[in-house]
């Protein structure tokens, strides 16, 4: 968007206001399209992967023998379903809750850089923005649980609130470790740090150059710890197994969205998959070098081809992290609510605090791996 507005102003002579509005609408549409397509793909991947884990075949009829269009068919089915609002529900809250839940996941896409050149907005508070905005979703979930006037829904909502607030802390603390190293909250700059040329020459001529820093996950033991903590905490934030307590179907029927049907339900669905993408993408950007395919060896590419390549690499990393989420979900049983809290408060928060402190000490000493050795 930052590049689109000046382009429209200069090349086509548009007024600033209309150029801004136009590029904003374009960005929003792009993000909506991306989330929808992404969710379709993610659901398909989840189905196929779970089928593989569970000695089944999975969808194999709609859209070729791999069932690629199964999700589209299901989405259409959801769209045509009756929009049911329970009689005793708080109708207003019930109606807007899915939208609010979706907002959080949706807004976070605004700051995600997909390649060096493609992102909706490039703000200096990227990491902070993502952490802050994704937390909005919990309000929607609470509203959904409360307004459904169903005790199981209320249970799900309460669990969700407790869980999200608990896991926000370790995930934010874990994200602070790379921020401490790079000295920036801008997602693009954090990626830039990971592919910073070793010799300090910023505009390399050749395609390949070496980068001393490497991916942040391997930058130092403490960034690695932070990566693991972030990944676990992000699982809890997406309500994914083994932390899927808010919608634990064997305990709470369906948790906070028990009463939802049709499109409103599918918004919760989109929110979940959107969130999954965001946490995977943030992990890929912050810890796994974003769009750079290899650690320590960086590529110097530009133009449409380079950006497409980088986009592919970035999406591949995100999909890999997403696949790990799916893998965990279909392997592990669900934890109990107190075990989840114990895990958050007794393990993840202290570990992330220690990682943050030790990273600060390391930075002060100017070491990366072991004091005195590297």
């Amino acid at each position, binding site marked *: 968007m930052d590049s689109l507005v000046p382009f429209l102003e200069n090349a086509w002579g548009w007024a600033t206001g209309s150029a801004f509005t136009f590029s904003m609408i374009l960005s929003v549409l792009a993000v909506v399209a991306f989330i929808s397509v992404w969710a379709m793909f993610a659901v398909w991947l989840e189905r196929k992967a*779970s089928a593989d*884990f*569970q*000695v*089944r075949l999975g969808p194999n009829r709609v859209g070729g023998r791999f069932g690629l269009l199964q999700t589209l068919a299901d989405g259409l089915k959801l769209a045509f379903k009756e929009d049911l609002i329970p009689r005793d529900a708080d109708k207003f809250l019930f109606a807007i809750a899915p939208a609010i839940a979706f907002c959080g996941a949706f807004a976070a896409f605004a700051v995600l850089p997909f390649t060096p050149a493609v992102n909706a907005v490039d703000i200096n508070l990227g990491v902070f923005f993502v952490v802050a905005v994704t937390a909005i979703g919990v309000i929607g979930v609470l509203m959904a649980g*409360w307004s459904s006037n169903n*005790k*199981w829904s*209320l*249970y799900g909502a*309460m669990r969700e609130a407790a869980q999200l607030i608990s896991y926000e802390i370790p995930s934010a603390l874990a994200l602070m470790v790379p921020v401490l190293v790079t000295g920036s909250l801008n997602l693009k700059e954090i990626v830039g740090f990971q592919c910073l040329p070793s010799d300090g020459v910023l505009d390399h001529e050749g395609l390949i150059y070496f980068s001393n820093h490497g991916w942040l996950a391997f930058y130092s033991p403490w960034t690695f710890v932070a990566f693991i903590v972030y990944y676990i905490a992000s699982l809890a934030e997406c309500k994914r*197994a*083994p932390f*899927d*307590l808010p919608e*634990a*179907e*064997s*305990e709470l*029927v369906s948790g906070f969205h028990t009463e939802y049907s049709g499109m409103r339900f599918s918004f919760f669905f989109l929110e979940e998959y959107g969130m999954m993408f965001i946490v995977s993408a943030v992990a890929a950007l912050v810890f796994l070098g974003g769009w750079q395919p290899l650690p320590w060896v960086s590529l110097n590419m530009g133009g449409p081809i380079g950006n497409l390549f980088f986009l592919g690499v970035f999406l591949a990393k995100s999909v890999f992290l997403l696949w790990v989420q799916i893998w965990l979900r*279909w*392997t*592990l*049983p*669900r*934890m*109990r*609510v*107190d*075990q989840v809290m114990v895990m958050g408060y007794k393990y993840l928060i202290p570990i992330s605090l220690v990682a943050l402190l030790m990273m600060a000490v390391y930075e002060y000493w100017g070491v990366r791996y072991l004091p005195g050795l590297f």
Partner: protein
Amino acid sequence: MADSVSATTAPSKTLLFPGDPLRPPDTYVDVRTQELQINMGPQHPSTHGVLRLAIWVDGEIVTRADPDIGYLHRCAEKIGESVSCIQYVPYTDRYDYLAAMNNNLGYCLAVEKVAEVEVPERAQYIRTIAVELNRIASHLVAIGTYGLDLGAFTPFFYAFREREEILRLLEWICGARLTYNFIRIGGVMRDTPAGWIEDIRKFLDLFETRLDEFNDLLTHNHIFVGRTANVGVLSIEDAVRYGLTGPNLRGSGLRYDLRREQPYLLYDRFTFDIPVGTGIKGTVGDCWDRYWVRLLEMRESVRIVRQAIDQLPTGGEIMAKNVRHLAFKSKAGEGYLGIENPRGELGYYLISDGGANSYRSRIRAPSFCNLSILESMLPGTMLADAVAIIGSIDIVLGEVDR
């Protein structure tokens, strides 16, 4: 929670909402939690059928639980009096529908006891094989759905994959997958088809390795152990007092198995162990122990089936001579016979006045007795543990309600 605002001066626990005329005018309002009564079932994913539990919860802690049964009541015992003994056998399939062979067997043995029918040896071996295969299938459902209760989906499919093999074998011999009606009064419906025994052998070899797979996937999973060890601990005394039988009783450490205590069929000819809970992961009698006992019992069933196959006499009758006609009439008399169903002691008490129908047929259903422990086990546990406990008791509602 929803109604968490109450007046502190309100008498006892009655809640006076703002605007309630009974509410004293000058009371300050504080926020406190309130016990919530929730209705679990009959359409709840983890009540294993149509069990309804009214539970009172304080936050996540269950303070009281009232099991409410009867949603699947089909007048089973009355039907037993109004149809002839032979006609009643298919009805027994419908009680514990996961272990229909065992139900057939229990009823037939009871009728044979009252009518003093001698069953040919080959039929007894075939009965043993069918019943033990059915026990494995039933336990597979029990532990598979137990994983499901705890949020582990995948083990369920692995369990059902093995169960499918058993269902194929049983379908082969009797044509039905769930309600077999295979064991008849005086013998079995038909002789073993060609190739059946060999296929069982192949299946058993495969199944033992698959059990190890299952252990890796679920049994020793850290989260699974965390969810089940030390949860729902049931002492031997309580288990005996509530009349629990089967894996639930053995999980508490009492080595009591009717196949050993009062051998029926040919169980005194086979060597097999009776696994009991030893508290490997936690306390003796916790959910994990009950689960573990079921898992070990499947291995013992495999041993029994192997021995039965090896000892199976070639040729010979499969039906007693004097019952091979529809006009079967029992001798007058009465008798009780209990067998070891996958869920515990399944007993049939029959009184016959010498006619085709039994004068009184009474069923002691293991699930029904096992279910009674819930009321005393659930209070004080968390909601998630309540689900774990219900799953570990492994009830079949068709049998509870009959």
